[in-house]
């Protein structure tokens, strides 16, 4: 975690900026009524901008917010979108006053005070001064946008259009005609070319069939630059443009008096203060659970609203409509809330990587081996809970690599390898997952030794061991109590085996794989979900029971007739586009009453390179769910990640896909 720098340093730098801001503002104040000097405006704008950056860096959110509002206002002023009238200049001068007050509070370590209240009021005041009056949203059809175009905008696109109009950006209709063969490439290129100066709000394929081989598009474009620039960009595409509405400078509304209270006198002390808050993850969990419950309430209200509209009688139509509208508003806010909480939970892996790096460096000194340690991907973000739980498994794998993976320097030299070994810790995003690799360029895993060990421990018969493929053989190291190392090392001889690493990862809905080449090294690949807090789930039904499958591991859904299944070595297999995938009926796996079906709905799940087809009787749809852990009493029940509520207050079990994949795809260690 980034350590907070001393507050005194912040206060000193911020004070300097505010003083500069104040000086320039006085200059502006003296020449009221004149056209402001652009350079001076720019200087004030830059000062507000620096202050915003500095304050947010140090977690002084109030100062950052006020500076942000000032910055936006100055930007509008700088770009000539608003006039430097008395109300605005007065507000700026108040701003300097309030900022000084806030800095004084910060230096005293106070969180509440008159300056804080003034800051909020002032920020709102300035916003109203520069924003177009909110009570009259621009009527889109008055902007010259064709009704036919307006009709095909989604709500989001319409919002984007409004935003652009609100900002006074000019609207154009760009028409481009392309060949049916390559119009998609051409449009992508046109979009890319437009991006630096404009926003493409909508792309409407023209319905008029001009000729068979060509297709025309009408692009609704909000262009921030002069028309000549737009023209220059679109000309190479053979496109033409028409101005719909010119850029409008929103007029400032009438000045609103702001209550002015005497600012407190600055008194500098060195008490530390921060406006960032440390939060116990359990509190965020509770918050998330509350959001989860609200999502259910929302689902119910929605159903209720829809039902009320459909049912007609009983409720006044106005009410039903109102209810629907409110339900939609609730839905949007809940989405924001959910996203917000998820964001708060996300932390960079660098937090744990930094700790690991310190430990690894200590271990390296102790090991006497010459090893370079490389870290990358520390900026990849994961749920805080997962990040915390990762430190032990990762440490174990790193110890393993230092201790068992990398050979002694002389041995390496004798094999023609560089004396210095290399250990890599890498993280990268991969869709819904994060992949973390712990790799070394050491000796690699020894098949024969693993085979001997497995046989001598009675985990496998000699014959079965001889039949195992290398990948399956490697996976034996995850069995409890397995260790190929005869001599227990100071470093990793902690009695924790790879089985514990695997179990820990399983608890995080993660999966671990080994890639190992003899003489080349070993890499452990960890595949983890981004968050466990809220997941998108596929709701399925089997033998009349409802289950939820996390969508993050669902690759696709296929319908298969029973006759299309094949049996290979007593296991049912399914062919998906030429790939053979193990198949299991959920009802069979869970020992539920099975009924013959004409068609299996197969949920094809995959984690890392493993695939499994889980057949269910019905697909009920998708839903965002909060997974609640099953009681500790049920920890030994396999294949379940938890339970959730889909809105009917029943407990619906959530499948533990990594566990099911391991159970079915991985070799069973039975003699």
């Amino acid at each position, binding site marked *: 975690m980034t350590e907070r720098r001393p507050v005194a340093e912040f206060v000193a730098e911020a004070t300097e900026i505010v003083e500069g801001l104040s000086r320039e503002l006085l200059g502006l104040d003296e020449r009221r009524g004149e056209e402001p000097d652009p350079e001076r405006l720019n200087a004030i704008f830059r000062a507000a901008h620096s202050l915003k950056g500095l304050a947010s860096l140090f977690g002084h959110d109030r100062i950052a917010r006020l500076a942000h509002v000032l910055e936006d206002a100055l930007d509008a002023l700088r770009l000539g979108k608003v006039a430097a009238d008395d109300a605005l200049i007065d507000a700026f001068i108040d701003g300097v006053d309030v900022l000084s007050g806030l800095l004084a509070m910060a230096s005293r370590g106070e969180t509440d005070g008159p300056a804080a209240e003034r800051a909020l009021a002032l920020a709102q005041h300035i916003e109203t001064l520069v924003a177009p009056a909110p009570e009259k949203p621009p009527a889109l059809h008055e902007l010259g946008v064709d009704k036919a175009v307006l009709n095909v905008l989604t709500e989001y696109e319409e919002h984007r259009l409004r935003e652009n109009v609100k900002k006074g950006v000019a609207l154009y209709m760009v028409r481009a005609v392309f060949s049916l063969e390559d119009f998609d490439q051409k449009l992508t290129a046109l979009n890319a070319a437009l991006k630096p100066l404009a926003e493409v709000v909508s792309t409407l394929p023209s319905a008029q069939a001009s000729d068979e081989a060509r297709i025309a598009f009408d692009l609704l474009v909000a262009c921030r630059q002069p028309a000549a620039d737009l023209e220059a960009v679109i000309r190479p595409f053979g496109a033409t443009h028409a101005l719909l509405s010119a850029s409008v400078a929103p007029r400032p509304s009438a000045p609103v008096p702001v209550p002015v209270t005497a600012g407190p006198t600055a008194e500098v002390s060195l008490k530390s203060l921060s406006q960032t808050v440390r939060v116990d993850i359990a509190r965020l969990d509770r918050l998330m*659970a509350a959001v*989860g*419950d609200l999502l259910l309430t929302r689902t*119910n209200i929605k*159903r*209720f609203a829809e*039902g*009320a509209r*459909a*049912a007609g*009688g*009983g*409720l006044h139509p106005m009410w039903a409509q109102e209810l629907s509208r409110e339900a939609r508003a609730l839905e949007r806010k809940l989405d924001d809330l959910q996203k917000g909480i998820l964001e708060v939970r996300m932390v960079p892996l660098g937090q744990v990587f930094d700790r690991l790096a310190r430990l690894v460096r200590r271990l390296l000194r102790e090991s006497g081996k010459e090893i370079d340690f490389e870290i990358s991907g520390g900026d990849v973000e994961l749920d805080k809970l997962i990040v915390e739980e990762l430190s032990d498994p990762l440490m174990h794998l790193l110890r393993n690599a230092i201790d068992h993976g990398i050979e002694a320097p002389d041995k390496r030299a004798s094999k023609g390898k560089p004396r210095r070994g290399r250990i890599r810790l890498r993280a990268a995003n991969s869709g819904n997952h994060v992949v973390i690799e712990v790799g070394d360029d050491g000796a690699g895993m020894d098949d024969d030794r693993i085979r001997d060990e497995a046989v001598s421990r009675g985990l496998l018969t000699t014959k079965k061991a001889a039949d195992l493929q290398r990948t399956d053989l490697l996976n034996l190291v995850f069995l409890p109590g397995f260790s190929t190392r005869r001599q227990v090392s100071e470093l990793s001889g902690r009695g924790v085996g790879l089985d514990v690493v695997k179990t820990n990862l399983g608890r995080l809905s993660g999966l671990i794989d080994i890639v190992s080449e003899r003489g080349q090294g070993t890499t452990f690949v960890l595949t983890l979900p981004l968050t466990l807090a809220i997941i998108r789930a596929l709701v399925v039904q089997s033998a009349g*029971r409802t289950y939820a499958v996390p969508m993050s591991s669902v690759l696709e859904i296929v319908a298969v007739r029973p006759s299309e299944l094949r049996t290979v070595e007593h296991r049912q297999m399914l062919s998906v586009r030429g790939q053979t995938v193990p198949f299991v009926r959920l009802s069979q*796996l*869970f*020992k*539920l009453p099975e009924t013959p079906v004409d068609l299996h709905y197969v949920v094809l799940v995959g984690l890392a390179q493993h695939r499994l087809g889980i057949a269910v009787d019905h697909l009920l749809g998708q839903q965002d769910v909060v997974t*609640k*852990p*099953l*009681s*500790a*009493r*049920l920890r030994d*029940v*396999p*294949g*379940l990640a*938890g*339970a959730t*509520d889909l809105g009917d*207050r*029943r*407990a*619906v*079990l959530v499948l533990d896909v990594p566990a099911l994949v391991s159970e079915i795809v991985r070799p069973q260690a039975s003699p």
Partner: protein
Amino acid sequence: MSTFEQLIDQFLYRPDEPGLPSLQWLADAPRPESTGVEAPQEFLAFSLTDETYAVPIATVREIVKVPVITEVPRAPKELLGVMNLRGEVLPVYDVRARLLLAGGVQPITGPGDVPAQARIVLVKSESGDAGIITDGVEGVVRLLPSLTEPPPPGGTEKPFLAGLSRRGERLYILLDVEKVLE
């Protein structure tokens, strides 16, 4: 019922509403005359088949009507399933088989399958709170420690019992909550 009424009904129906709102009435109830010798201890008495069992009131978290219980595949047979109690997922056990009572483990899948008197006694426990399905809750009884005897020797159910206690004519079998839920 109109569709609309059905919707309202669904919307308002809360299967997880507790049968007894709280045990607060207990604290407010008048105390019995002190015997001067020993203080009685409070137990919650409930019936399983034909017997009356009791657990210390301090171990009881809540008493709830039987909600929809979700069966947990591949779980031990004593586990009836899990229930959703105001967002918390709790295991529910049927301990009758362990106590060698007739009735045993019956498939109970929903409120419709259980007698109206049936209640789930939610107990606090070290290894996680859990519900025990009972045929009915009788109420709180005050039992004197001096009238409590150890469970009779022999019998496979013995490890799950904490003792036997009498109050007048009634015999209460004291259940060892931790052991019976193990």
